[in-house]
Each structure stands twice: as C-alpha cells, then as structure tokens.
C-alpha cells in the first residue's frame, strides 16, 4: 500500500498556515464533550495534556511513574534548538529546516520538518513565560550555544539540565490543570493494550502497578506520548523503565510502525565497566564544543594519555571532517569512533573507548570557564569512573540513545488507526534517519503545545463517533486478553529472570543491528531472536503475586514485547538495503567508509503492518519527495 501523509498542498512556507485555516474547529462549548486519553507525561505528553485541557477538553493522563515529573525527558542535558537567530549568525527558519532535513539524511517528510522549524520559536517564548530559567547573558538576554551537526549557535539551555527545566515547565502547566479538575491523572498506571472499536482507537487497558488491578478506560481519542525504544539494546542512555509496550501494542492492533531500524547511537557516553552494568551514562554532546576527540596514532599504544605526545595522537574527527571537526553529527562521530577502535586504536580496559580531551580548552579559557560550562558533567563523570577530567581526558564510547523510528503518523500526527495520535519520540515523523542534537526536545514540545491541539480538533469536527462505555464487548475482550497474557507469564515457572533475557536480547541487537549492520548478521539475528523468545515463554521465572506491586512481572511484560519488537526492527534493517543516517549497512559505503544512500530505491518511509507473531510483517511505503532541499550526498568534510 502507498501511504498518504496528508500533506497540504501549496508552497512549503504556507502549508501550515493554510492548513490551520482549512481545518474544522470545535466550538468552546462542544470541546467539553470530548474526552482525550494521553499516555505519557514527558515533554510531549505533558505539554499536550496542559494545552488540550486549557482549550476545554476533558483529559485523562496515564504514566507508569509515581510522578509525571519523572518522565525520561527529565534527563535531557544539552539543550533545545530554535531558529531565533539571536546571535545574528545567519540562522533562520529556513536554515533550521534545511539542517534538519540534511541531518536526517533525507529520510524525513519535508513538510513536517518545515513546520517544526516554524514553531520552534514559539516554544522558547512559551517556556520563558512559564519561568524556565534558561541561561542568560550579563545583559539579561537569552544565551545560545552550538551543538553537534550545526555550524551556528541556536541551542537554548539551562545548565546541563535543559530537559529537566523544560519538563518541569510542562509538568507545572499540566498540574495547574489537574488542580482545576480539567485533567484526571493516573500515576503508577501502565498501559498494556489499545482498545480499537470498529477500526477507531477508543481507549486503553491498564495495569495499576501498586495493586495489579487491570482496568479499562474509553475516550474519543487516544494520544500516545510514550517515548522511544532504545532499551531494546538493554544497555542504553535511556532510563531503566523506558520500553516499547505502548507503541508495540498499538502496532499489534493495526497501527503501522515506521522505520524501526532508525536508531541513534550517541557518540559521547561513558564506556561499559562490566556485566553488572544496568545503563550507560550520556556525557552531553555540548562537551564536544570544547573537548577534542582523539586516539593514539598507533595500535596498542598503552601509555597514559597525558604521556602520549601531540605527534602520536590522531584527532580523527578534526582530520576527517575539517569543517565540522569535533562537532560532526552523531551518526558520523559514532561510526568514526567504532572504526578507530576496530583498528585496534581504542583505549581503556576494553579497548572500546576514545579520549575526549579538555586540556587545550582549559589552557585557552582557564579552568574556571570550563567549570562554569561543564562543572556538573565533570563531577558526574568523576563519580562514575573515579577519574578527574580536569586532569586526564575523559574516556567515551558510543551508546544507543534515541530512536527516530516510531509509529507512523500523517501530517496531523494521527496514525493509520483513526483517533490514535502519536507525539514526541514515540512517532517517526521529523528526524529521518538521524536526529540532530537538541531537536528531540524541540519536537516533543512542538507536537504537544502547538500542533496536536489544532489537529485533534479537526479530527473531532470531521468524525462521527459512536458512544462507547467500558461495557462494550470489545473493551471486555481486550481486558480479558491482557489478563490472559499475565496469567500465562505467571505460570511458566522456569529458571531465568526477565533481566537475563533482556540482557541476552540486547547483546544480539547490539552485535547485529547496532552501529553497523550487514545482511548476514541480520539474517542470523532473525534466527536468534525467535529462539530466545521461545525460551522466554518456556523458561521464564516470576516470583511474587499478580495482584500486588510486582517488579518482576512489570519487567517481564516489557521484555516480552521487546522480544517481539526486536524482530520487526531486524526486518526493517534487512529490507532497507542502503545506508542512511544511523542505519549503516556495511554493503553500502563509499571507499572512505561514508554511508551510501540509495535514493532510487529507498527514498521512502517504510511502515510495517503486523501479521502475527513470528510472521514477516507487510512493508508499506510512503514515498518522500524533496522539493526544497535537493537530495545531495551528505558531506560534513
């Protein structure tokens, strides 16, 4: 099937305005009659919940956290982009649009990206009005810095805690509506299934994590803002609980999953220290503004970094990408790190590490300036590794970080299931095959504050919805299926823990579907994953009870879905027989090792339709047309 993204006609600069005018409105008195379920309280979910409640809709919000403020968005460090051009360095909406399309290696929908760049400035205005304490100049004006993949300074930040401050802004806006009884908030409640009635998304089935109670909720529309699936790799920079269940369950109910193989490996993370490792810690990309990345010139050089003289060092990013240097985009910087480590020049106990060195910056700017800019990151590094980065270079290595893939949505952020809207990292829409730094926060808030509130109204105004209650047979059936799934998990009585299976799955995915991929490996993984899944369903152990707070069962439910989802990711990686952005197929590279796109055959979104566990899903395409940013080889040299 050829998918229709429902992109409005007309010049790209006018599409969104024109569309806003053409969309049907719901009158204030009628808004009260519509109920919207939102799953997730990260930047996307919280901003949407607040905005929709302010408009007058009835909103019901769900999160598995004990407080909405703990959503994974809280961990974002570096910053948020906008096209304000405050530094007068040549930025514009057009340039942010251009950089994002190019950064995504021409696998995003142009019209969505342009709209994102357009609303980026409103986001900064909104956040400042909410009291987000962005960094400021002495003059009192807002400060900016540069970030990977950009040659100018368009990133707004609040120390190394930008995500925290933006989320607290959205969270407080949302809590204000909770206090006004416009939002009903369910914490510690995990969505386990999507309710679809006559082809339309009408509700969710949830498990209360404190009591184990399975419940159902119905509404006029469902919004998923449930974040990304990097934890399919087991080790990633994501929080422990991040998982794919919400979007994967929607996929099993008929929603198409787009570009699942587009995953981002972040170049600057603290390397793994042992088998006990539970997560990888990101060192903000902003460090690459002042840190220089290098490895020894010669393989096997075991000297301490401070003892290796200049002439024996290879500042490989500066050498290979002179115009961007240490600020080369993430996919490029990550692969370059892998390449030098594969050549035997990696450092640290495992050989999987490269140096990020601040000694030149400290010489140039003084320790105090560096401390002001990165103090908290340096402290965090020292706490984790025991090394002091003021004295010896940091050691870093790439790690899974962000997922560009997600549920397919049209221009209105609605999936192919009417009524099911998907926002934030959970959808696939704006970043193509690679996301630029500081653009995820921008997208989450754009979706929640400034896009969904308009488009969801149009959906209500143009759709006739039958009345449903939780007594509907489809609702009861869905609840029963969830209960049966849990019963089945509880009764396996095997010998391995959910974490053991998760760790094994992560290794398979990292080895065969990680930073670089090839046909042979992907085919091998397509044999290994189903085997592991079979073992899971016959040899899993869960202790404790179903009707109680049960951390083992929670984990088992999430791992069960990862074990199915992984196969989908592998199919996508195998069928996308080209390299682009974060998806690097070894068969497709230029002689110098750069990714080689195949625009003739793959200039499209791949959106997958579920056909049963273990069956190959059906691959649909949405062709991508580049009218404004001409398709070119992406060069950062």
């Amino acid at each position: 099937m050829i998918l229709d993204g429902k992109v409005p006609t007309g010049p790209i600069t006018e599409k969104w305005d024109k569309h806003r005018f053409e969309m049907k409105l719901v009158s204030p008195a009628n808004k009260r009659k519509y109920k919207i379920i939102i799953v997730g309280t990260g930047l996307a979910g919280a901003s949407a919940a607040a905005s929709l409640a302010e408009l007058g809709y009835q909103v019901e919000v769900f999160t598995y956290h004990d407080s909405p403020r703990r959503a994974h968005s809280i961990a974002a460090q570096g910053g948020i982009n906008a096209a304000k051009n405050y530094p007068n360095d040549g930025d514009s909406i057009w340039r942010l649009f251009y950089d994002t399309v190019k950064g995504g290696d021409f696998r995003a929908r142009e019209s969505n990206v342009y709209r994102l760049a357009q609303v980026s400035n409103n986001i900064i205005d909104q956040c400042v009005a909410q009291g987000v304490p962005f960094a400021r100049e002495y003059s009192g004006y807002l400060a900016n810095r540069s970030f990977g993949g950009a040659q100018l300074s368009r990133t707004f930040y609040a120390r190394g805690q930008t995500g925290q401050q933006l989320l607290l802004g959205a969270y407080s806006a949302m809590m204000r509506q909770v206090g006004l009884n416009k939002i009903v908030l369910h914490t510690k409640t995990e969505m386990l299934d999507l309710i679809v009635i006559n082809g339309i998304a009408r509700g969710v089935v949830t498990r209360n994590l404190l009591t184990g109670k399975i419940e159902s909720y119905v509404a006029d529309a469902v919004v998923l803002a449930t974040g990304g699936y990097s934890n399919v790799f087991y080790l990633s920079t994501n929080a422990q609980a991040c998982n794919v269940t919400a979007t994967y369950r929607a996929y099993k109910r008929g929603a198409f999953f787009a570009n699942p193989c587009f995953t981002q490996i972040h170049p600057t993370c603290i390397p793994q220290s042992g088998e006990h490792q539970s997560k990888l810690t990101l060192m903000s990309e902003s460090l690459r503004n002042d840190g220089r990345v290098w490895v020894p010139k010669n393989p096997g050089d075991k000297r301490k970094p401070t003892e290796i003289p200049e002439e024996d060092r290879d500042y490989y990013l500066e050498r290979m990408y002179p115009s961007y240097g240490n600020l080369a985009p993430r996919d490029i910087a990550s692969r370059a790190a892998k390449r030098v480590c594969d050549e035997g020049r990696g450092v640290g106990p495992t050989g999987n590490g490269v140096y990020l060195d601040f000694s030149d910056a400290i010489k140039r700017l003084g320790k105090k300036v560096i401390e002001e800019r990165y103090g908290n990151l340096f402290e965090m590094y020292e706490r984790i590794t025991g090394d002091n980065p003021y004295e010896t270079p940091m050691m870093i290595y790439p790690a899974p970080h962000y997922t560009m893939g997600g549920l397919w949505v049209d221009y209105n952020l609605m999936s192919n299931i009417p009524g099911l809207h998907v926002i934030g990292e959970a959808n696939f829409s704006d970043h193509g095959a690679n996301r630029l730094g500081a653009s995820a926060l921008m997208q989450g808030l754009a979706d929640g504050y400034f896009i969904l509130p308009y488009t969801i109204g149009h959906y209500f105004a143009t759709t006739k919805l039958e009345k449903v209650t939780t007594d509907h047979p489809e609702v009861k059936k869905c609840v029963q299926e969830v209960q049966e799934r849990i019963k089945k998990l509880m009764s396996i009585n095997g010998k391995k823990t959910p974490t053991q299976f998760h760790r094994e799955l992560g290794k398979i995915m990292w080895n065969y579907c990680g930073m670089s991929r090839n046909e042979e490996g992907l085919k091998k993984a397509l044999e290994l994953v189903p085997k592991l899944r079979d073992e899971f369903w016959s040899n899993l152990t869960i202790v404790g009870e179903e009707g109680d707070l049960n951390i083992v069962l929670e984990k088992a439910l999430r791992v069960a879905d990862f074990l199915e989802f992984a196969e989908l990711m592998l199919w996508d990686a195998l069928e996308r027989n080209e390299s682009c952005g974060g998806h690097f197929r070894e068969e497709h590279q230029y002689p110098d090792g750069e990714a080689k796109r195949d625009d003739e055959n793959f200039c499209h979104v791949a959106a997958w339709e579920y056909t049963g566990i273990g069956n190959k899903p059906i691959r649909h395409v949405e062709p991508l047309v580049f009218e404004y940013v001409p398709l070119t080889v992406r060069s950062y040299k």
Partner: protein
Amino acid sequence: MKLTLHIWRQKNTNAKGHFETYIMDNVIEDMSFLEMLDVLNERLILEGKEPVAFDHDCREGICGACSLTINGIPHGPEKGTTTCQLHMRKFKDGDEIWIEPFRARAFPVIKDLIVDRSAFDRIIQAGGFISVNTGQAPEANSILVPKKNADTAMDAAQCIGCGACVAACPNGAAMLFVAAKVSHFAYLPQGQPERKLRVLKMVEQMQKDGFGNCSNYYECEAACPKQISVKFIALMNRDYLKASFSDEKSELIRNQLA
C-alpha cells in the same frame, strides 16, 4: 569486596516491617549502589524469593525517583549525590550497610523501600506554576532577566523532587522543597504577578499533607543531592509573612468561606 546488607522489608503499607540480612560477595568497586541491589535481586528471584522493591529510573541523578536511607542518611554518605550515583568505591570490604526507606509521616511506605511521595505533586498542583496558557507568551527576549537572578532561580529550580530533605528533617518538614519552587519563581519577573498567592497556596497544601514544621536544623540542605541552599527557606518565610497580610490572603479566605 564482601558486604553485609540489612535491608528493610515490608509487604505493604499496613504490614509491619523488619530488617533482613543479606551477605554480598564479589561486589565490584565500579558498581553503582543500585547495581549492587540489582545483583542481589537477581539472586533472590533465582532462589524463588521476592526481590527488594525500590524506586529508581534515570540512574543519572536527575529524575528524583531513587530514594533509600543508607546508614541513616538519605541517599547515603556521599555529599551532593543521589543513591543511583553513589558508587561502591565509597565502601570497603567487610562493611555493614543498613538500608531503609525514606522515613517521614507524609511519605507512607508502599512496599519495602518504596514510599508514596505524591504529596509533592499536590503541593505543585496547589500553586507551583505560572498561570500562562499555551499561546499567550510574548517574544522571549522581551522579558529580560539579570544573569545573577537567572542563575539563582536555576540554583533553586534544579530540585529533583526526591524528598531527601523531608526524610532528613527531624520534623519531616518539606520546607526546602517548597522553598525551592517558591524561590525559583520569586527570582524571575514572570513569577511576580502570582508571587503572594503562590506561596500562600503551596504552604497551605504542605500543612494539609502532614509535613512537619521547620525548626532550623538544616539537615535538609546537607541531605539534598543538589545542595539546594536553606537561604531559600528564609526567602519563603519572608514572602509568606508578607503574603499573610495581603489582599491575596483575604481573597483566599473569602473563597474558602464561599
């Protein structure tokens, strides 16, 4: 290294809790405290026993989910550090470690080491915001904030809402948490219009939720993983006093009577 852990186990809010002792061999220096508990939990599951329930998520010291009172100190011995960022290199072979939930009247135990901190959300809901709707905002640079004020606002705003301040306080007061939010907005021009109402409503909710009073022990600052200063409590007290004699207060009383 080898460690002896005494961990608080409690089936649910109403059950009586007790310490159970676990011996941990082969603890590695590079492990985080929670990774050590992960290892214990994996062992317990394989022995068919219920693992120790504890709250955690980001493991980067920012989400505020992790808690634990370690050897009597919320978040353990290292200053300015959450439990998830505490690493085992801070302990030594043969150590005995006592692990309890955060203890406070306003934070009932849910299970084992997990406590209910929803009172914090209710305080924010009562007034921890600026009442601006989406779409109302003026151009960002039309609001100037002196760098010093922005920095101080950020010092206060970086609170992660973990509740260590409450657990550390002999009275179980939430003054530092509330003061941090009140001060964050008090230092910004955007926060001025609602300044009085905000402090009145937040303090009132704090009292309703069963938090104790402040008697200047300053244990809160010492336990705060973000080292938020008690000077913000002084600011809040001043603001509260001023607000108590304001039109906002009379209006609040009128509304409550109506």
